[in-house]
C-alpha cells in the first residue's frame, strides 16, 4: 500500500519536475494498429496502400479477386481507424462503385464484423478476409442493394452478366457504374 504524498515532498506547483526524456507517447490505438499493420498477412489478391507512411490510421485496401463473379475487377476500400480502436471497429468504405448485393451506391458495406459483431480481438486482417469473402460469396440474404440480391437469388446467369457489365463500365438497372477492370 503506497502513501502517495508526504507533506514534506510537496512536489509540483509550477516547477514541473524535470522528468528525463518525457516525450508524448503513442495512444493505445496507435500501439495496437502498429501491431496489426506490421503483422498483416494479406492474401495474394489483396494489397494495401499507405499514402502517408507515418499515418497508420488511414489507408486503402485494394482487392483484385482471382475467382468468382468479380475476377478481373479491382476494388478499393478506404480504412479509417479511430482513437477508440480496437474497442470500436475501423470505418471502412468501398470507394469503387460496384454492383454487389452487400455494398450500396454510397460505398457502405454490410459485413457483420464491421458493425454488430466487431470484437477487440479481431484485427485489420480479419476485416481483409471478410471483405475478400464478400467478393467470392456475395450474400443475397443480407442485402444492401436489394435489386442485385434479387437477381442473384433468381437468375445467377443474369447476375453474372450484370456484374460484368458494371465492371466494364455501363448502366445496370438505370445506375451507371465506372469501369473497374484491373
Amino acid at each position, binding site marked *: 500500500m503506497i502513501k502517495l504524498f508526504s507533506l514534506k515532498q510537496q512536489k509540483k506547483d509550477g516547477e514541473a519536475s524535470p522528468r528525463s*526524456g*518525457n516525450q508524448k507517447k503513442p495512444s493505445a490505438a496507435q500501439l495496437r494498429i502498429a501491431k496489426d499493420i506490421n503483422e498483416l498477412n494479406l492474401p495474394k489478391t489483396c494489397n494495401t496502400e499507405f499514402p502517408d507512411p507515418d499515418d497508420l490510421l488511414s489507408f486503402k485496401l485494394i482487392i483484385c479477386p482471382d475467382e468468382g463473379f468479380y475476377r478481373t475487377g479491382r476494388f478499393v476500400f478506404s480504412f479509417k481507424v479511430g482513437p477508440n480502436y480496437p474497442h470500436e471497429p475501423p470505418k471502412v468504405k468501398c470507394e469503387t462503385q460496384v454492383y454487389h448485393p452487400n455494398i450500396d451506391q454510397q460505398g457502405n458495406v*454490410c459485413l457483420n464484423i464491421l458493425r*454488430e459483431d466487431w470484437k*477487440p480481438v479481431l484485427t485489420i486482417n480479419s476485416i481483409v478476409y471478410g471483405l475478400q469473402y464478400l467478393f467470392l460469396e456475395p450474400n443475397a440474404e443480407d442485402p444492401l442493394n436489394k435489386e442485385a440480391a434479387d437477381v442473384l437469388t433468381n437468375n445467377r446467369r443474369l447476375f453474372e452478366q450484370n456484374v460484368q457489365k458494371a465492371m466494364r463500365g455501363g448502366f445496370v438497372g438505370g445506375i451507371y457504374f465506372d469501369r473497374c477492370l484491373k
Partner: protein
Amino acid sequence: MGDSQDPLNKRWDHLRKILERPGPFCHPEFEPSPEILDFIMTGCKILVIGAGGLGCELLKDLALMGFKQIHVIDMDIIELSNLNRQFLFRHKDIGSSKAEVAAAFINKRIAGCQVTPHFCKIQDYDESFYRQFHIIVCGLDSIVARRWINGMLISLLNYEDGVLDQSSVIPIVDGGTEGFKGNARVILPGLSACIDCTLDLYPPQITYPLCTIANTPRLPEHCIEYVKVIQWPKENPWGIQLDGDDPQHIGWIYEKSMERALQFNITGLTYRLVQGVVKHIIPAVASTNAVIAAVCATEVFKLATSCCIPMNNYMVFNDVDGIYTYTYEAEKKDNCLACSQVPYTIPIKDPAKYKLKDLIELLCESASFQMKNPGLTTVIDGKNKTLYMSTIKSIEEKTKENLSKSLVDLGLRDNSEVMVADLTSPSTMVLKLKYLVSDVEME
C-alpha cells in the same frame, strides 16, 4: 496563517477531528497533523474533468470539503435540458460555457475557493498542464476521453531502470453513471488496473446490422439508424457532418425517420428517441450522480490526506430495484496496451554513428529479443513517425532510406522511445534509447 489555522474559525472542526487524531482505519503511515488541513486548502491541486451532471456535484462536494485549488475542464456549453440536474446553472446561462459558469458559481458561493475554468477539450492541453495536479477526478460520459486522460497520466510515469518512481503517479478517481446505475473507481496509473485494463467493462455501442436497417427494419431505432448512417451522407442536407447538438439536424433526422417508420408500419418513434439514438444519450438521474460524486469526492479526500486507505478499487452501485452496491478489485492486465508498457532500456554508445539498421539487427539477433520482422515507430515532436516496416510494401519503400540514417539524424534523442511491433510478442513493445554520450558532446 491560513484559514484552516484560525482558532476562531470553527468551519473546519469536523475535518480536524479526522486529520488531527489517529484512528483504526488510517493508512499505516498516516501521521495526524494540522498541516494536512493546510495542504488540502493551500497546496493540493485537483482537476475535475467534466462540468456536467457528475461535474457539478463533484465541484460542490470538493469545495465544501475544503479543497480550494480546483481546476475544471469542459468543452460543452449549457443547454436547457441540463438544468434539471446540473444545479450550478440557471436559465440565463444557456449558451455559456459549463466550466466557466460552474467555476464562477462555486467561487461566489463558497468563500475562499478558487476554481479555475478551462473551456476547451482535454486534448487541447499537454503533459505540462496535467502534471501540475495531485489528483484528477473524472465525471465523463465518453470512453474515448477516459482512455485519453488515462493514457496521458500513464505517459507521465517515470521509470528508472524499469522501476516505477512513485512520485510520478497521479491518481485518477473516475465516476460514471447511466440512469440508476453508476460506478466509482480509483486508479493508480502504473500500479493498479487502468481504464484500458478493464475496457471490457464498457459495453460497445449498440449497433444494428446494416442490411437489417436497410431492408427489414423492425424497430424505430432501425429507422433512425438508417437515416443517420445512409440517408444523411447521401442527401447531406446542409453539406456538413451530422451534429447531434444541432436542433435543425435532429429535426431533419426525426422527419425522415418518421417517413420511414410509416412506410414500414413501425410505431414508437419520438423526437427524444431520435436524440437518444443519434447522440447515444442515456437518461441521467440526479440522485445517481449525487451518490457517485460523493463516493468520488471521499476517495479524493482519502488520497489527498492518507487519513484512510483508498477504495480497492472499483465500486458498482445500482438502485434500479432496491439498492445494491459492491466493491471489488479490478485487476491490472499484464498485457494492457496502455499501462503494461514498461520501457526496455537500450544503451547506445555512439548515437551519431549508430544506424537504424544496427538497431534492427540487434532486435533480430540478440538472444533476448530474437524478433522476426520488427516494425518500428516513434513519436517526434508530438507526431507519429514510422521508422521502418518491412512487411508492408508501400511503407517499406517509403521508409527504407531510414535504415542507413543514424539515430541522431532520424531525430531520436537520449531517452526517446521507439515502439516495436513483432510477431514474437503479444503486444507492441517500448524501447527507451539511453545515449551513453551527452547531447552536448554530440553537437
